[in-house]
């Protein structure tokens, strides 16, 4: 399970360096994300551009992450495309998560929020 984390202007960018997010890594993904949230990171961009496949367990893990974040901050999921985006739509998770097409618009969303 590979996550890389960078921080810039109070925005934490978490990039998932995996081509598949499935049951084999979903629990570890959730655990690492919860640690990031517990470190008082309240503006998180989750970059899933590299993920070409997500299964139901990982969708559950993502919702778990969103619930852990609660009202204490904002999470933007960026770079969902193809079957991953289809899964978000099929399960209406596109209405639960804030989705951004790319990194630039995700950052823009935080800047717009601040104003």
């Amino acid at each position, binding site marked *: 399970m590979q996550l890389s984390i960078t921080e810039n202007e109070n925005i934490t960018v978490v990039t998932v360096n995996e081509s598949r997010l499935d*049951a084999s890594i979903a629990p570890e993904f959730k655990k690492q994300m919860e640690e990031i949230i517990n470190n008082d990171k309240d503006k998180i961009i989750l970059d899933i551009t590299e993920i070409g496949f997500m*299964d*139901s367990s990982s969708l*559950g893990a993502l*919702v778990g992450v969103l619930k852990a974040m609660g009202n204490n901050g904002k999470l933007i999921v960026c770079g969902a495309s193809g079957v991953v985006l289809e899964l978000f*739509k*099929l*399960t*209406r998770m596109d209405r*639960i998560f804030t989705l951004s097409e790319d990194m630039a618009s995700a950052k823009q969303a935080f800047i717009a929020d601040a104003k």
Partner: protein
Amino acid sequence: MNILVVDDSTEIRLIIKHYLTKFDHNVDLAVDGGEAWEKITKNEYQVIISDWKMPIMNGLELCKKVRKAKFKNYIYFILLTGMSGKQNILDSIKAGVDDFASKPIDSDELKIRLMSAQRVLNLEDILEKKNIALAKINDQLSTDLRNATNTQISLLPSNLNTNKFNTAWYYKPAVFVGGDTFNYFSPSPEFLVFYKIDISGHGISAAMLSMSLQSTLGLKRALYGGPITRESSYDLPRVFAENLNKMILENTADHYLTMIFGIVDIKLNQMHYVQAGHPHPMSYNKEKDQLTEIDVDGFPIGLIENAEYETKHIDYSPGDKFIVYSDGINEVDSALTNKKLESNTLYEHFNAIRDLSPTKMIDKIENTWLIKDQLENLPDDISILIFEFK
């Protein structure tokens, strides 16, 4: 330990035998590789101490032969050598030699080398015992899981073949037992209720929840919000989904599920259903000879508090079909096109067999789409359920 000493020199054989007997080992002797091999096949030795250069079969050839034979206990091989040089040592290790002892034979060196042999043999012995125990447990678990799969499959409903419906299904769990399930039943002669469920994750815990839901959902009348009437049936799927969402969120921490739940009004030729994150169903219109993927979405069950659902309606005519399937099929490659059975590829596959009866469709899916090797190692459960209305 039982030790075989192989050397063409009588003097060396007797010296080694003398030392080994003093260290309380049982000793056999052989004059060359040929005689040694005869003894090895008849007796059980833990250690062979062999000279390198001998007539008939030399020490290296003997060692290779021992390694190739794969005896059930490990035999520790010590090569006696006056030869040195890197290549000789490398050749010996490659042949399977464990250790070397130099000539002339020194009592202390021999004692220490045998201690080292004993240490390795003890480890081999422990490993062997653990492997046997693990293999036994693995066999038990596999048998248990196979029996569980059979139980699970036996609880799935039989194909319907009435004057109102034909149904057929395909079911293959990922790891013996699956998190997918489905059921259908008639609560009264005018209605057929069906549900198809995919519990998130797979394996035993998903299977247990799946089996519990499979057998109880039909009975939990509270989920239906009251008796099933023509009036209530119209929005029953939404009510059912919202109630089940509450129930799962209250009771189950680790799993959620995707579902299509429907009720067919046999008199009015209407179907009401709710889509809760399950893959898009497909409907076949017999009159137009047209298969349509229904672009309908919905929240999974047990993921979001107070999620709202909506009932969809389909009017059907005799010969029309309704196909529901879980997302497990999306992860396997088609034997026909070598492409993943997802999105358009999956639609095209169903479209090519759209006019067949449900049983024949399932037969085509099972025998022409799916690759046997893939089915032995599925990443997720595959389940497909097809209704044909009469």
